[in-house]
């Protein structure tokens, strides 16, 4: 497959950049933070995204989506990374749509996909329970109870948890706490009895929550995929999210690089434009190279998700690991080369380094994925 965007994807990219730069730039995130917004995202912007079809980018046309695939979904995420636009796009349009369209029953699809495509429902994936990502370590229990299940336990670091209409929850139906077998995925309405969600005050000013499940009763229809066989679909959903995050981080890294290069052309010290200093030139050029590598591996991962999703795990793993390293390098170099002004809250770079840190940790950091990569390669 050619490693260039086709015309559709290029048009989408231009449209996304135009829209986000105008309607949802970094100042929007700053305002949401400073106003103490309860939603943590702008509903008008979200409605406009739905209008443009972004919320349906991975929803089949039969269910009201535009079904453009992961490359397209990544193009949008990348542009959002440039502007740090806050929205439930990743948790809903990428991960929720992946979960339902690939693993949902006909009934589940019919119920949820049209709402997702229309931007009328938000989903959130509740997977982690400890400080480090580990999808096989599941302590939340789901015990059979009548025709259904009763869920108990606690999930943390749930992106968009408090604004979600429906939670996709991994719970243990069999086996011990770290067993790969015995995990089941459930669709749990956020307003179900026994579900309580508490929003966290995150460093990136984006949405994340902890979710407590106390005797939450769901019917057997709430199971997504097979009972006890939830890890595989969960990993697929996570991989969609990881690829999306990698794309987002790629956009953020590009933006950090470009902002910094522009600053280097402007700022004077010692009577010279600092961009003339060779040491800074070489570091910027090295960063450029790393950012280019990041763009390539993200595109490769997205293309593989489109072409052969069942074989995409390794490329996604490499992409998430690489972008964790690249985006953090970009943010660090951006601050250092900006000097004191980069340290001030007034300047935007701080938003980037903070968001990149959260994106890095979400669904496995670079160390997690490098280790997983090595295990997949059997060493």
């Amino acid at each position, binding site marked *: 497959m050619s490693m260039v965007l086709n015309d559709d994807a290029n048009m989408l990219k231009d449209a996304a950049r135009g829209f986000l730069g105008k309607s949802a730039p970094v100042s929007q995130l700053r305002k949401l933070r400073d106003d103490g917004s309860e939603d943590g995202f702008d509903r008008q912007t979200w409605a406009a995204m739905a209008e443009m079809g972004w919320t349906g980018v991975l929803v089949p046309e039969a269910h009201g989506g535009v079904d453009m695939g992961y490359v397209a979904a990544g193009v949008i995420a990348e542009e959002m990374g440039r502007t740090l636009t806050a929205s439930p796009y990743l948790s809903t349009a990428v991960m929720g749509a992946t979960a339902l369209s690939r693993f949902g029953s006909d009934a589940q699809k019919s119920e949820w996909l049209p709402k997702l495509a229309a931007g009328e429902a938000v989903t959130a994936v509740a997977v*982690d329970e400890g*400080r480090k990502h580990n999808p096989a370590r599941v302590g939340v229990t789901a015990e059979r109870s009548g025709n259904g299940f009763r869920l108990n336990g606690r999930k943390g670091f749930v992106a968009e948890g408090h604004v979600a209409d429906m939670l996709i929850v991994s719970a243990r139906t069999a086996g011990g706490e770290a067993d790969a077998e015995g995990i089941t995925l459930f669709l749990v309405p956020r307003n179900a009895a026994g579900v309580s969600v508490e929003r966290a005050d995150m460093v990136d000013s984006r949405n994340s929550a902890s979710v407590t499940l106390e005797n939450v009763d769901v019917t057997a229809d709430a199971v997504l995929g097979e009972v006890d066989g939830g890890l595989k679909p969960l990993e697929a959903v996570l991989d969609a999210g990881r690829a999306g995050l990698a794309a987002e981080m790629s956009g953020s890294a590009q933006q950090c690089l470009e902002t910094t290069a522009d600053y280097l052309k402007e700022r004077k010290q010692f009577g010279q434009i600092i961009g003339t200093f060779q040491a800074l030139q070489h570091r910027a050029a090295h960063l450029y190279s790393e950012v280019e590598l990041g763009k390539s591996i993200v595109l490769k991962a997205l293309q593989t998700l489109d072409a052969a999703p069942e074989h995409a795990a390794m490329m996604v793993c490499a992409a998430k690991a690489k972008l964790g390293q690249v985006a953090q390098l970009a943010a660090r170099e951006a601050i250092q080369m900006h000097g004191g002004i980069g340290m001030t809250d007034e300047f935007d770079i701080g938003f980037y380094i903070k968001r990149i840190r959260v994106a890095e940790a979400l669904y496995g950091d670079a160390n997690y994925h490098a280790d997983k990569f090595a295990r997949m390669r059997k060493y």
Partner: protein
Amino acid sequence: MPDLDAFRAEVRDWLDANCPEEMRQPMESEADIVWGGKKFNFTEPQKLWLDRMAAKGWTVPEWPVEYGGAGLSKPEAKVLREEMQRIKARTPLQSFGIWMLGPALLKYGTHEQKLEHLPPIARGEIRWAQGYSEPNAGSDLASLMTKCEDKGDHYLVNGQKVWTSYADRADWIFVLVRTDFDAPKHLGISFILVDMDQPGVSTRPIKLISGRSPFCETFFDDARAEKHNLVGELNRGWDVAKYLLTHEREMIGGMGSGAMRPMGDIAVQQIGLDESGRLADPMLRTDIARAEIDGLAFMATMERVADEAKAGQGTGANSSMLKYYGTEFNKRRLELMMDSAGSEALEWGADDDVARNWLRTKGNSIEGGTSEVQLNIIAKRILELPSA
């Protein structure tokens, strides 16, 4: 050295008798640091401990007695430090007055200047701020433009400083000002002391990416400075500034190498061990081991550079090396601590949580001369590489 032993015994007894129990507990956060000054809210034990130590001259043990110190020799001062560490006594007073202005005054000040300013520093009565950087004079500090005019019996200061640490809580400020706009840039700068308690001086905190505001912008709008508060010669303030910057470099470079809990211990507590007894995150384990080894080597280097200085060996420019490596290392350490803490560090917590400290370290390699400036100095002064 029998004298030292006697001194040690005396110090030990005195500390045992005089250090309040509360002042022997580890500090819980930066909020426990005693900075002193008119606006500082002391707890009772803090004030007691400060006053007792100041009365002995032990807040600034190596300063002369007449200026509020105890006139201790270096070995004696070391004994005092060791004995304080033994009982885990907190430092009674920290301040820019002690670290920076004091040494500069001792070297460049007149007897009258020392008598006026040093004892209040030693007693924690006056808190000082530093007025160096300006919006357009960052790394290129000498291009500063804050104007200082001779008005006969006093000076008038006009201009703006940035990155003045805690200026909103300080009482006085030492300022680099331009007193000659026609001279080459390094030769028109003076070093002057300004009372901040006047209408012509105002401050505005700068909110940092960490959410904290340890720095201010400080504005001088027809601020008055007394003529006798010019330190060193008129237009030769750059010498004082350079001397002071060296002290600042060493201070910042040494940060983060103190009695920190080892990274490995923290990570084990946070992440746990795997079945083979190794940290459960194998890649992070690699990074931490390498960083801890570098940390040991860096601490050994600080020790060696200090010992060489005492022995009259080594090069003064090594303070640039320590500043460079120490701040870059500290940034690396906090990145690893963020890796280790995982999602729990991504929520804002207490005022000195890991995330805030992580973000704060990003400034370490900018303030007090950027890493790039330190590398320039090493290249030119130590390696003697030519200028373009």
